[in-house]
Structure formats: structure tokens, C-alpha cells
């Protein structure tokens, strides 16, 4: 994730040699960037950093409904919440593990399919033809819709024995009358809904990435006799690597942490096949009011994501350097 700027030319101020000309002694030049950053820093601290540290601390407390009102004085229990969450002989541990496995499967499938669809659409629309701009705009609509409206649409289509999906399936003679929002079907419903609203983002990013590949590389490859499929495999996909690297990471983090889609699709009754980790933690915290346990699970989740992200960045950066 290289986000460094190349425009590191001489800064206009701060290191000026002729500082005597400026008559602004009230604020020292050195403090200007810090003052400009202060509001951003304040809100990041308030909403992200301090709560995160607070959550870490809470994960060591016995913080349930009995102590919630006086949460500052909840008793310290050491690693007990973690022991409880990771006790794979007990019900809580098994449920956490199941939820974790479902989340991994959901994230991998959703990101993989979204990336392939996004790349396909970007390649199909690379060349101009009548209606290209229209299709491009159309494909982006699901991403632009507010999450709850897209999930509502899918909920309506999947709901009931005679909803849109079941009615169409029985019209086509493929059965019907299946409960798409219950049992194991719920996983499929969740995944399709998530892909519907996520793949346009992959499309958007990969389309922009394609534009940065110079066309003469393709010409040279064509002269060498490389077919189109070979060109896609040996030029397009490797040249998209920098975009794909960031894109896949971002998509993975979004889907892995997804709360909205399952929450809106299933309301309170999320079937275990669609019980993503965020939902699991939410229900363990806000429905049973066991904030200590919820915080311990959240901390484990963060640790996992940190390890995954660091490992992923190390692996993909090394590969791109060797390429």
C-alpha cells in the first residue's frame, strides 16, 4: 500500500531561509502543520483510538449488566473473558469458531467473485462502443445505493414462498418454495446480496487501473504473436497488480467486518450459516449485555485482522518485487 507522495518538492514554508521577511511571530512556523492536523487528530482519538484502547481494557473486566451503570468499577478478571471465548469445549467457543469459519468463507467467496466480475466488466468495456457509458453508469448503481435499500430489495425478492426468486424458479420448472433466508440457504442469499452491491467497486477500481496500462505494450505483444487470452494473462493481470493488491485488501476487510448486510437481511434472527463475526459479537454484547466478553472477542478479531493484513502486505509486496 504505497501511499507516499511523489510531490515532495521544497515546502513553501517551514524551512524558509529568509524567515525574517515574514512578520508573523504569534504562531511559530513549526507548529503550523500540527495546528492544521489538530482537529483530525482530536476526532480520530475520540472515536477510534481511545475507544479501541478502552475496549482492550474492558476485555479484562467482568462487565455485564450488573456493572454496566458503574462500568468504571467493574471487577478485573484478567484473561477470563478470553479463556471463555476461546474455550472450544464450551458452547461459546464453538459458536465463535463457527462464526469465524462462516465469515472467512463469506469474505473469500465475495471478494473472489467480485474481483473476477469487476475485471471481466472492465475488460469488456475497455473498447468504446455505443452504449458503453450507459452500461458503465448502470453497473455502478448498486454500489451507489444506500446499503439498506439494496438489502431491502434482495430481502423482498428472497422472502416468502411465493416471492420473486421462488416464483421465477417454479415458472422455470426448477422447483421453488425454498426458504432462502433460513438454514443453509441463508449463506447463499447473504453472499449474492453482498456481491451485488460490492462488485461495482472492484469494477470501478480495475477500470481505472486498466487506463494506466500503456497500449503499446499490447501492440508489441501482438506483434510477437500473443493471442488475446495470453495478453490478458501475461500483461493485463500482472500490470493491475498494484491496484489489485490494495483493492483485494480493502474488499476483504470490508466484507470480513460486514455487519449491515446480514443485520438488514435477517433482522434479529440471523441463521447460523450467515452469522458473521460482527453480528456474533453484536449479539453477545448488546443482547446479553456482556460487554467484557464482546470486547474480548473484538480484540481477538482485531489481532487476527492485523496479522492477516501484515502477512498479506508482506507476501504481495515481495511477489511484486520479484516479478
Amino acid at each position, binding site marked *: 500500500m504505497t*501511499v507516499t507522495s511523489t510531490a515532495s518538492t521544497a515546502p513553501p514554508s517551514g524551512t524558509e531561509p529568509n524567515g525574517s521577511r515574514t512578520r508573523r511571530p504569534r504562531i511559530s512556523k513549526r507548529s503550523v502543520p500540527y495546528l492544521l492536523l489538530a482537529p483530525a487528530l482530536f476526532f480520530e482519538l475520540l472515536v477510534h483510538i481511545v475507544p479501541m484502547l478502552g475496549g482492550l481494557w474492558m476485555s479484562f473486566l467482568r462487565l455485564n449488566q450488573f456493572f454496566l451503570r458503574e462500568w468504571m468499577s467493574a471487577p478485573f478478571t484478567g484473561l477470563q473473558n478470553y479463556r471463555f471465548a476461546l474455550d472450544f469445549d464450551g458452547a461459546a467457543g464453538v459458536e465463535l469458531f463457527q462464526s469465524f469459519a462462516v465469515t472467512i468463507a463469506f469474505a473469500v467467496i465475495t471478494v473472489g467473485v467480485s474481483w473476477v466480475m469487476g475485471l471481466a466488466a472492465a475488460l469488456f468495456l475497455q473498447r468504446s462502443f455505443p452504449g458503453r457509458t450507459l452500461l458503465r453508469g448502470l453497473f455502478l448503481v448498486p454500489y451507489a445505493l444506500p*446499503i439498506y435499500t439494496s438489502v431491502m430489495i434482495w430481502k423482498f425478492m428472497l422472502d416468502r414462498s411465493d416471492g420473486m426468486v421462488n416464483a421465477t424458479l417454479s415458472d422455470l420448472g426448477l422447483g421453488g418454495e425454498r426458504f432462502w433466508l433460513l438454514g443453509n440457504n441463508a449463506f447463499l442469499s447473504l453472499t449474492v446480496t453482498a456481491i451485488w452491491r460490492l462488485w461495482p467497486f472492484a469494477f470501478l477500481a480495475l477500470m481505472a487501473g486498466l487506463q494506466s496500462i500503456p497500449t503499446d505494450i499490447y501492440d508489441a505483444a501482438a506483434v510477437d504473436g500473443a493471442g488475446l487470452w495470453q495478453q490478458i494473462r501475461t500483461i493485463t493481470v500482472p500490470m493491475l497488480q498494484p491496484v489489485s493488491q490494495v483493492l483485494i485488501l480493502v474488499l476483504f476487510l470490508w466484507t470480513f467486518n460486514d455487519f449491515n448486510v446480514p443485520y438488514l437481511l435477517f433482522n434479529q434472527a440471523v441463521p447460523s450459516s450467515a452469522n458473521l463475526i460482527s453480528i456474533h459479537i453484536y449479539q453477545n454484547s448488546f443482547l446479553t449485555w456482556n460487554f467484557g466478553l464482546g470486547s474480548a472477542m473484538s480484540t481477538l478479531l482485531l489481532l487476527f485482522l492485523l496479522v492477516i493484513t501484515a502477512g498479506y502486505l508482506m507476501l504481495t509486496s515481495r511477489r511484486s518485487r520479484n516479478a
Partner: protein
Amino acid sequence: MREPRWFQWVRGVGLCLLTLFTVIPLYVMVTTSVKPLSDVQDTFQWLPSALTLEPYVDMWSTVRLADYFVNSAVVSLGAAAFSVLIALFAAYAISRYRFRGRDAFRFTVLSTQMFPGILFLLPLYLIYATVGQATGIVLQGSHIGLIITYLTFSLPFSIWMLVSYFDSIPVDLDEAAYIDGAGPVQTLWRVVIPAAKPGIAAVSIYAFMTAWGETLFASIMTDSDSTTLAIGLRDYSTQSTVYWNEVMSASLVVSIPVVLGFLALQRYLVQGLTAGAVK
């Protein structure tokens, strides 16, 4: 590059499938919104038995849609305005100054993007409650609490994008302003912001969309007076009936502003995205 015949076939079929996948749910949304209630309670029909605009009228009285709409608008506009303003200052500092802690700041802000919301939902809830008890500033269930929360959600991306926009604006312009005796804030205001307008517009719509669609924090941090659309649209389901036609007409109405804004500005979003990612 000559396209072989097979690719033209693949493209034709592929684009058809992708179009169907995209359009069918949108078609269902639009047609359901003009169906009478009896239609949506019956077996699904591709065509409405009768066209009616009643859902568009009734949706305002079935639930307190206007209230939810206003709440969402206040919260989203507030969050977007503050987020962009704060991001402008931060991005200007990062783009134009070299200072100690610059990289640490960028890294920290970006990495907050990967935190799962659920991780800081619980502590933030308690912090807001404690601040409320201590100072009397009500952050739970109030617009201001949601604005503060949401503005930080779009802040990292906004800073990142604006930095890459600012970097593409020649520093000579700043220097000319400095020679004329302008301070940093004046320079930002008069020189850099006018040159970065498309980027600022793109960041604004992104920040607005983020707040307009947020559900997790809204589900905990709103009360009946501050319910946003994300939570309020669920009121169309009652014990006995779901007013699906009104759900869809309301969904359509609340989607149109963000969809149009996004489609108009997506070009600039992509520019900023790639400028940041590809470099």
C-alpha cells in the same frame, strides 16, 4: 489490438449476464413501488396488475418518513461538511509540510479504516454516556453524537484523496501567495481549494454516502427522536403486514439523491483513488 471472434462472443454474453444481474433487482424495486398492496401480498408478478402512485403518497403517513429523512439529512450533511473541512486542513498539512510524526499520522489514520466498527461501538457507547453524565452534552441519541461518529468514518479516505489532489497542484502557486503575504490558511483557502474543487466535490459525496447508509452505529446510538432512514425504513414491517410497495417507493426516493451525486462525481473519485493507489 485485433479482437478475436471468440472474445466478441464472450463480451456479448458476459455483458448481458452482468446487465441482467444488475437490472433485475432495480427493476423489481421500481415496479414494486407502483404496485397496489394486494399485488405485493400475492404471488410475485413481473408486471403490476394496476399502476398506482399511492405508495408514494402513503409512505409518508405509514411511518414517520419525513422525520427520518430530516434526521438523516441533518446528520449526513453535518458529517460531510465537518469531515471535508477537517480533511482539508489535515491534507494540506501532509501535502505541503515535512514535520515529525507525519508518516505516523498517515499510518494511524489509514489503519483506523481497517478496524471493525463493532470493536469501538461498545466503548464509544460508554464514552458518550460518560461524557453526557459529566458535562451534560448529550451525545447518545442526538444528532451531534452521530455527526461526530460519522465524520471520522470518511476522514481517512478523504485525507488520503485530498493529499493526492493537493500533491498534483504546483507548489509555485502557494509560493506566489506567500510572497503576497498570505498565511497558510489563506493560501489553502484562496489558492489550493479552488484548484482542487473536483476532488473536494468527490470527497463530499463520499462522506455524505457513508453517513447516509450507515446502520450499525445508528442501530445503537439513535432514539425515537433521532432515528435515521437506515433504521426507520424497518418500520414498514409490522406484526401483520409488510408494506413492501411503500418500502420500495421510500427506498427509491431516498436513493435518488446519492445515486445521482455519485454518478456525477465518480470520475473524480476514481482519479483520486488511482492517484493514491498506483503511485
